[in-house]
């Protein structure tokens, strides 16, 4: 509970209309996608709500955030930031925690069209940013979560794979200058932004060691080490002519596919052929998107209803290990060149072009450009969450998919998770095939306790598999319990991570629930 004087101190900063401790408002922050999983993981019943924050506050500026954090320090309150706020990692982990909803910080601060970066505040969405930067022929990376989430959150605080990762990389690697309110309330500006003369956003490293090194890691510190108020993210060339012409009414939109863009679904007979194909396509540096999604996932991502998805059944049965590829070009010549390479590579790798059979609707092109394909998962299943997430080579990612299938089938038989024949996989390549990650989207029913428990048990088996088979560290190794489990298997990293927390936030003012706890608390 928050005391009156504490509440008043916060209220003074933002005004009474921008803070609340009414249960009716707090409950809307306790309810989260996958909160039921979090509850079960923490030995509680599988409710759709996690903890209520002590209050929710809506700051409008970095200065206000600094003041809020200082008040938290003064009264021993904790804070948890969120930007667009999708996912259980936004939940507060202890009762005296203030949820800082950054919705009012929603500006695109700068688009540097020449140097190809944009500076955004937390509540700018991917679609907003893309719409603005494409006016200059540019594009931004978006996480698979979709265009409605925050590029700032993704870049600074949260994982970062995306459907276009082959050409737009990983969110955590697209970061330039950063403005960051530390758990003390101090303002840290990374890189050239931190200099007093002509501060600028074009780099976030140095002078000397890069403080990006303590900022987020592979999966993000999830507000465990402060609040990011602005970030410069790298931009990428828009893959085709930057035109966006869409007509019709929802959901029957008609998209005028801009010049020059083309989807391919190329089928391979087995994992080895697919591994080779992913590598070869990426070596030729032609793709805008290049990933493996299981045949079921392909049918889902190109359908806009369950009925449509099931109508793809005959294709589904014929697809084995399909590679999804999209190429884009600025000129006819570039397009022809890339198409020629694709044809050559299909031959070389022994693939079969299934593109025409899937009948990809034009609006799927819009959804691909706008990173909406992943969201089709919900349309089909109601709810899913991924397990695994390790990222290294294509080969490792494929191996993970192979090894996971029998385990998943075992749990499907048990009845907790939905039947995808153990095949539900999304495997994305990064930076022209230099890396790949693999995750297993797993359908369950969030409203059925046995299903929620089933998912959690299955996820634990996945985490164990990664340890045993050396498949990298999964996405959701976060929080003390998980770190203390994995740390000893991974160079005792958790000891160092904890030291960072202790150095910057000894009193755990930044909610450590999805990070790591300082043991220095008095």
């Amino acid at each position, binding site marked *: 509970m928050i005391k009156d004087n504490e509440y008043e101190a916060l209220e003074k900063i933002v005004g009474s209309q921008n803070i609340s401790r009414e249960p009716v408002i707090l409950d809307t922050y306790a309810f989260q996608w996958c909160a039921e999983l979090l509850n079960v993981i923490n030995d509680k019943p599988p409710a759709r709500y996690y903890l209520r924050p002590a209050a929710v506050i809506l700051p409008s500026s970095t200065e206000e955030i600094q003041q809020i954090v200082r008040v938290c320090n003064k009264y021993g309150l904790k804070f948890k930031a969120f930007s667009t706020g999708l996912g259980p990692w936004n939940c507060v982990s202890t009762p005296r925690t203030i949820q800082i909803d950054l919705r009012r910080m929603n500006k695109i601060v700068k688009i540097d069209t*020449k*140097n*190809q*970066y944009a500076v955004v505040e937390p509540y700018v969405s991917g679609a907003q940013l893309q719409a603005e930067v494409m006016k200059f022929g*540019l594009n931004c990376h978006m996480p698979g979560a979709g265009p409605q989430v925050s590029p700032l959150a993704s870049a600074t605080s949260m994982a970062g794979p995306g459907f276009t990762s082959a050409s737009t*990389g990983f969110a955590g*690697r697209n970061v*330039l200058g950063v403005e960051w309110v*530390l758990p003390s309330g*101090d*303002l*840290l*500006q*990374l*890189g050239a932004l*931190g*200099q*007093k*003369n002509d501060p*600028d956003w*074009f*780099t976030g*490293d*140095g*002078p*000397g*060691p*890069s*403080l990006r*090194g*303590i900022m*987020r*890691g*592979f999966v993000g510190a999830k507000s465990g080490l402060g609040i990011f108020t602005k970030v410069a993210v790298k931009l990428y060339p828009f893959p085709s002519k930057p035109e966006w012409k869409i007509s019709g009414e929802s959901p029957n939109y008609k998209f005028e596919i801009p010049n020059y863009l083309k989807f391919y679904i190329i089928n391979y007979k087995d994992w080895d052929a697919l591994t080779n194909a992913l590598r070869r396509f990426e070596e030729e540096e032609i793709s805008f998107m290049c990933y493996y999604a299981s045949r079921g996932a392909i049918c889902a991502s190109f359908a806009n209803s369950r009925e449509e998805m099931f109508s793809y059944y005959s294709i589904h049965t014929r697809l084995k290990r399909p590679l999804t590829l999209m190429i884009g070009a*600025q000129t006819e*010549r570039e397009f022809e*060149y890339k198409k*020629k*390479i694709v044809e050559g590579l299909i031959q070389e790798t022994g693939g079969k072009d299934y593109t025409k059979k899937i009948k990809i609707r034009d609006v799927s092109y819009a959804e691909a450009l706008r990173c909406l394909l992943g969201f089709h998962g919900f349309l089909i299943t109601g709810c899913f969450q991924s397990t695994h997430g390790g*990222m*290294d*080579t294509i*080969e*490792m*990612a494929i191996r993970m998919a192979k090894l996971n299938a029998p385990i998943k089938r075992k749990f499907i038989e048990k009845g907790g998770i939905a039947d995808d024949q153990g095949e539900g996989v999304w495997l994305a390549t990064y930076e022209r095939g*230099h890396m790949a990650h693999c995750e297993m989207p797993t359908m369950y029913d969030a409203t059925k306790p046995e299903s929620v428990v089933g998912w959690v048990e299955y996820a634990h088996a996945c985490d164990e598999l*990664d340890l045993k088979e*050396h498949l*990298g*560290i999964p996405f959701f190794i976060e929080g003390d319990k998980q770190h203390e489990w*994995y740390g000893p*298997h*991974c*160079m005792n*990293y958790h000891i*160092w991570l904890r*030291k*960072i927390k202790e*150095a*910057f936030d000894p009193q755990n003012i930044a909610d450590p629930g999805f990070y790591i706890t300082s043991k220095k608390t008095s």
Partner: protein
Amino acid sequence: MTDLQAKLIEIVGEQNVFKDEDVLETYYKRYADNFLVKSPIKPKLVVKVKKKEDIQEILKLANAQNFSVVPVSSKAVDPNASDAPHSENTIILDLTEMNQVLIVDRKNRMCMIEPGVSFGQLFPIVKKEGLRLLTPLLPACNKSVVTTALEREPITIPRYQWDSSDPLLCTEVVFGTGDLFRTGSAAGPGTIEEQRASGQAQKNPLGPTQFDPFRIIQGAQGTIGIVTWISLKCELLPDTRKILYVQAEKLENLLDFLYTLLKRRFGDELFIVNNLNLASLIRETSAEITKLKGKLSPWTLIIGLGGRQPYGQAKLEFLEAELNDIAKEQGIQLLNEIENISNEDVIKIFDNCTKNPWKLRYLGGSQDIFFLTTLDKTPRFIDTFNKIVESTQFSKDDIGVYIQPLVQGCNCHCEFNIYYNPSDTNIKQKARELFEKASIQLMDQGAFFSRPYGIWAEEMYKRVSPVVVDSLQKVKAIFDPKNVLNRGALCFKEESA
């Protein structure tokens, strides 16, 4: 024999501990004359190591006995004197013999190397596998590959630099505490062997989990940890190449075209040099350089194109045609050749190293000033620099300029080379004066010295927010609480030990 010496001998054996004056002197000479070093300090001892366990032992000893350790991995002299001790009580940890190429992996486009591996050693090995390295512009053959990656030295192919940290991937490191660690996916689960058996190749630099220790080690001038190997991102070696050029009287005239190429991700090698630097890269002697320089336009943009079988020819044709169209549209003259320079001359400087460091070819001495900025700001900095050259009456003919776009075009490395004859004390003094004055004025103008060596460090850290310095010191206190690693470098002053 001192107690320290005895203890070190116990760790690495007598043959690897050096206290002879002439040995110490050789190390001292590497940096004593460097303008970045205010008051050069001679190391107390030099210790050669080959095993990470020995490094761990030595660092534990340093913690116990409170001395500073400066690692040296290159046989080549570091033009930035990053190996100069800042503290009286320093030993040099010579890693040049820790020089195994541990892995070369064509399939996964990487290699794993120890710190002593030099460019001269590595180039032929990776080329044999069909790989190319992402390197600084024509590095010295005896330079350590690891340290160039660790020091975020600019690479010549901006489109392959997705993150400022590239080409550095994973590291194995002994922190200042003496603890061994592996960063990125190399952290585990599993040993490196187990990871490789599982299909991994230490490609993901991020993590483990929620921090990126490799970014703290990088750019740290050896103040956070001593790296015992790194995995390095490689690309595929082209078998078909073509070089294109654009020449200009004014730098500004090249920038729009360069920006377009960066945005389209066209061109492998992509950089701008002034005539003196281009001549220095191409010719080997002072006379030849002077001669060639006179025939070149003041500025040249170099564009390297490459392709590989079976699509190499098609790729080059497509690229050339596109580049020609863009050039035409922008009123740029795209050249297949520059008079007096052959394509072979230029190709030679790519995917290659030199035994005759190109910056020393012209006058025998060079001191570099470099910083990060954006391409559009470079003309302003060049203007400032030229004014200082004028005001210090240094010969403007002896200035090299190198502009290297980085991170796929988001920023660039801007470098001025002050060439001088080291045996002419008068000129040398002028060069030093120019160096010091220009460094400060450029910083004041917002040039971001992201790699602040020697005397730059103090000046640069004065010019950033105190929260940055405080945060760096907090990080340092975690990984090297006793400040035994390169004590005094960066913002880690002696007294903070």
